[in-house]
C-alpha cells in the first residue's frame, strides 16, 4: 500500500515537472570529484543546500509559505532520486526579519556549511543584504518574491516577477477591459511600491495617454507599513472618483484597508481596484467577503486550472494541511529547487560557474504554466494573469496574457 502511494506520488511529481525526462540519474555516473571541483558540501550520495527565510519576526507571516513550498519541491526531487543521484539535505537558518542577521546567516551557510545553493530571502532589503556575500563567495541564491527590478546578479535566479511583468500588462488590461482612464495610485511606503508606482505613472502618462488623452493619475499616496487608518484616504478617493485604484498595500495594513473600504461603502462595483500585492495568503486574513470583486495582477493563482497545478495544490495540502493556501510567491518559491536541479543536471556539475551558464533557456511546466529562464538576466519569462477576488478568498482567473512576458529588470524609459 505504502509503495503504491509513493509510486503514485512520484508519478504525480513526474507529471508536474514533465520536462525532466532524465528524472533520476545514478551517482556512480557522476563521481564526486568531477561534479564538485570547488569544495561544496557534496558527497557520493548527498548534496546539502541552504534555506534562509524569516521563521520569526514580522516577516515570518509572509515567508512561511515559501519555506513550505521549497520543502515540498525538495522532498519531491528526493523521491525522484535526487540531483545527479544525490539526495538533497537541507540546512535551514532563520533570518529573523532582520537584515544583518540575513547577511550573517548567509555567510554561515556559504562559508561554514559550504552549501551547494541557497533558497531564500523574501523582502528586497534582505536580498540586498546577502547579495554581496553571494557575489564575493560565488554561490547561488534562488529568490522567490515579485520585486521592483533594477537588479540582475549572476548569483541570483529571480523566480518571481520584476515590476514591469506585473504592472504594464495589468494596466493595459484595465484600460481595455475596465475602460480605466483615471487612476489613483496607493501603496505602502517603501522601495517596492514606490518603484512600482513610478513605472505605473510613467506607463499611464507616456503610453496610455497617447491612446486616449483623458488618461491621468488623479492621486498618488503612500502609507507607512502597518498603518491602519485609511478613512481619510477613502474620503479622498470618493471625492476624486478614479476609474481604477491601483494598489500595492502590503502586510498588516491590508486587512485595515479592505475592511475600511467595505464599511465605508466603497465596493468593487463603484470603485474598481487592481492590486499587485494581495494574494491568497493575504486574503486569509482579510476575508474574501471584504475584498470581493477587486482584481489582482499576478502570475499565479491557486485556482489555475491545469494538471500541474492540480497536482501541486494536492501535494502541498497533503504535506502542510488542508487549510493551507498558496499565493503567488509560494508558487515562485516552489520553482527554485526545480530550476536548480535542472541547471545542475544540464551542467552535469554542482560548480556554481557551470550552473550559471546552464540557467539560460531552462524550461518548466510549472503550476503557473510554462516558464523559461531568460538568456541574460536569470529572471523568468512568464504569463501575466488577472484574477478577480471571490467571497471564499480564492481568485477567479479572468484574463491571461497571450504571450510570455519578457522580464525586463532595467526598463528603458520607465526609470
Amino acid at each position, binding site marked *: 500500500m505504502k509503495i503504491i502511494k509513493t509510486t503514485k506520488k512520484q508519478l504525480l511529481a513526474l507529471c508536474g515537472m514533465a520536462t525532466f525526462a532524465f528524472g533520476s540519474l545514478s551517482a556512480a555516473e557522476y563521481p564526486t570529484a568531477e561534479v564538485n571541483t570547488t569544495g561544496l558540501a557534496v558527497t557520493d550520495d548527498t548534496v546539502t543546500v541552504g534555506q534562509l527565510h524569516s521563521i*520569526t519576526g514580522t516577516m515570518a507571516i509572509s515567508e512561511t509559505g515559501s519555506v513550505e513550498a521549497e520543502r515540498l519541491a525538495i522532498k519531491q526531487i528526493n523521491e525522484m532520486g535526487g540531483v545527479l543521484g544525490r539526495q538533497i539535505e537541507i540546512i535551514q537558518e532563520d533570518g529573523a526579519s532582520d537584515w544583518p542577521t540575513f547577511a550573517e546567516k548567509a555567510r554561515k551557510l556559504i562559508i561554514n556549511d559550504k552549501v551547494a545553493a541557497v533558497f531564500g530571502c523574501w523582502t528586497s532589503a534582505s536580498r540586498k543584504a546577502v547579495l554581496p556575500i553571494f557575489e564575493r563567495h560565488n554561490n547561488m541564491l534562488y529568490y522567490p518574491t515579485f520585486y521592483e527590478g533594477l537588479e540582475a546578479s549572476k548569483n541570483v535566479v529571480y523566480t518571481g516577477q520584476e515590476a514591469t511583468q506585473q504592472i504594464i500588462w495589468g494596466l493595459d488590461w484595465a484600460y481595455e477591459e475596465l475602460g480605466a482612464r483615471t487612476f489613483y495610485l496607493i501603496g505602502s511606503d517603501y522601495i517596492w511600491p514606490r518603484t512600482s508606482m513610478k513605472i505605473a505613472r510613467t506607463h499611464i502618462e507616456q503610453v496610455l495617454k497617447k491612446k486616449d488623452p483623458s488618461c491621468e493619475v488623479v492621486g498618488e499616496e503612500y502609507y507607512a507599513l502597518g498603518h491602519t*487608518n485609511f*478613512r481619510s*484616504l477613502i474620503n479622498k478617493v470618493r471625492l476624486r472618483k478614479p476609474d481604477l485604484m491601483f494598489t500595492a498595500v502590503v502586510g498588516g*495594513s491590508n486587512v485595515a484597508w479592505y475592511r475600511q473600504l467595505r464599511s465605508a461603502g466603497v465596493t468593487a462595483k463603484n470603485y474598481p481596484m487592481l492590486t499587485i500585492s494581495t494574494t491568497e*495568503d493575504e486574503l486569509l486574513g482579510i476575508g474574501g467577503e*471584504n475584498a470581493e470583486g477587486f482584481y489582482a495582477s499576478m502570475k499565479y493563482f491557486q485556482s489555475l486550472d491545469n494538471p500541474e497545478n492540480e497536482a501541486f495544490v494536492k501535494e502541498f495540502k497533503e504535506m502542510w494541511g488542508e487549510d493551507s493556501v498558496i499565493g503567488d510567491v509560494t508558487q515562485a518559491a516552489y520553482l527554485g529547487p526545480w530550476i536548480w536541479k535542472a541547471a545542475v543536471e544540464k551542467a552535469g556539475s554542482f560548480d556554481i560557474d557551470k550552473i550559471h551558464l546552464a540557467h539560460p533557456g531552462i524550461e518548466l511546466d510549472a503550476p503557473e504554466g510554462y516558464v523559461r529562464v531568460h538568456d541574460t538576466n536569470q529572471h523568468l519569462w512568464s504569463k501575466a494573469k488577472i484574477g478577480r477576488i471571490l467571497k471564499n478568498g480564492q481568485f477567479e482567473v479572468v484574463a491571461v496574457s497571450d504571450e510570455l512576458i519578457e522580464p525586463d529588470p532595467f526598463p528603458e524609459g520607465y526609470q
Partner: protein
Amino acid sequence: MGDYTIQEIYSVVVMQSFSGLSLLCIFVLMGLGLYIIFGQMGVINMAHAEFLVMGSYTMCLFSKFISANFPWMMNYYIILAVPLSFAVAFGVGYLVEWLLISRLYKRALDTLLATWGLSLIFQQCFRSFIGAREISADLPDWLMGTWMPTDSIFIPVNGLVLLALTIAITVGLVLFMTKSRLGLRMRATTQNREMSNALGVNTKMTDRLTFALACGISGIAGAFFTTMASTSPTAGTNYIVDSFLVLVLGGLGSLLGLFISAAFLGILSSVLEFFMSGSLAKVWLYLIIFVVLMKFTRGLFSARIRT
C-alpha cells in the same frame, strides 16, 4: 476644489469629521490602560500593547470558535466576546502584577526593562502558540455595514459602535473610580500610599487590581481593534507609539488630558491626511507635536497630584 458641488464638499466634510471622531475614540482606547497604570501606580508598562493584542486574539479565536460551532450566534457573539477579552487580559494582568511588577515597585527603570522584556515574551508566545500569520475576527455582516443618513454620506457602522463603546468604557471607568469602594481605595493609594496602608487599605491588593483592571480595559480595546485591522504577533508595535503619544501629550496621568490630547491628535491627523499625502501627513503631525511639547513641556493638561 472648484470642480466639486456644495453637496459633495458638505458630505465629505461630514464623513471626514466622523473619521476624526473615530480616530479620537481609537486614541482614547489605546491610551486608557496605559493612563491608569501610570496615573495610579507610576509604572510605565512597555507591555501595554501586548495586552491590546491579547484582547484582539481572544476576539479572533472566539469568533472562529463561534462560527465553526455555533453559526447561529454569529450576529450577537460580540456581546460575549467583549467581556471575555476583558477577563483574559484581566487575568493575565493579575498574574503579571503578582509575579513581576509587585517585586519592582520604586525601581522605575527596572520596571521599564522588565515590561519591555515581557512584551517580547508575549510576542513570541503569540507566534508560537497561535501562529505567525495575521488573523482577524469573523464579523457579522451588520457590523461591516454602512449607515447612510443622506445619499452621499456614508457612515461606517463599526465607527458608531466604536463611539458607543468608548463612551461606555469611559463613563463606566469614571463612575467606578468615583463611586465604588475599590475606586476609592485606588485613589487613596495613589494620593498617599503610607497613610492608606496605615488606615487599613490593602495597598498590595489594590495595586494588583488596578493593574489587572487597566489590562482588562486594554483587552476590550484590542478586541475592538480587530474589527478594523488584523492581528499578528507583532501588531502591538503599531499601537505602542500612538499609545505613549496620546498619554505624553495629554500630560501623563489625567483623564481629561487624555481626552484633550486624543481629540487634538484625531482632528489634526484627519485634517493633515486629507490635505496632503499619507506619509507626509505623518511627518507634519510629529513636527507639530514636537512644537506643542516644547511649548507645553508637561503635556497639554498636566495633573497636579501627589504620588
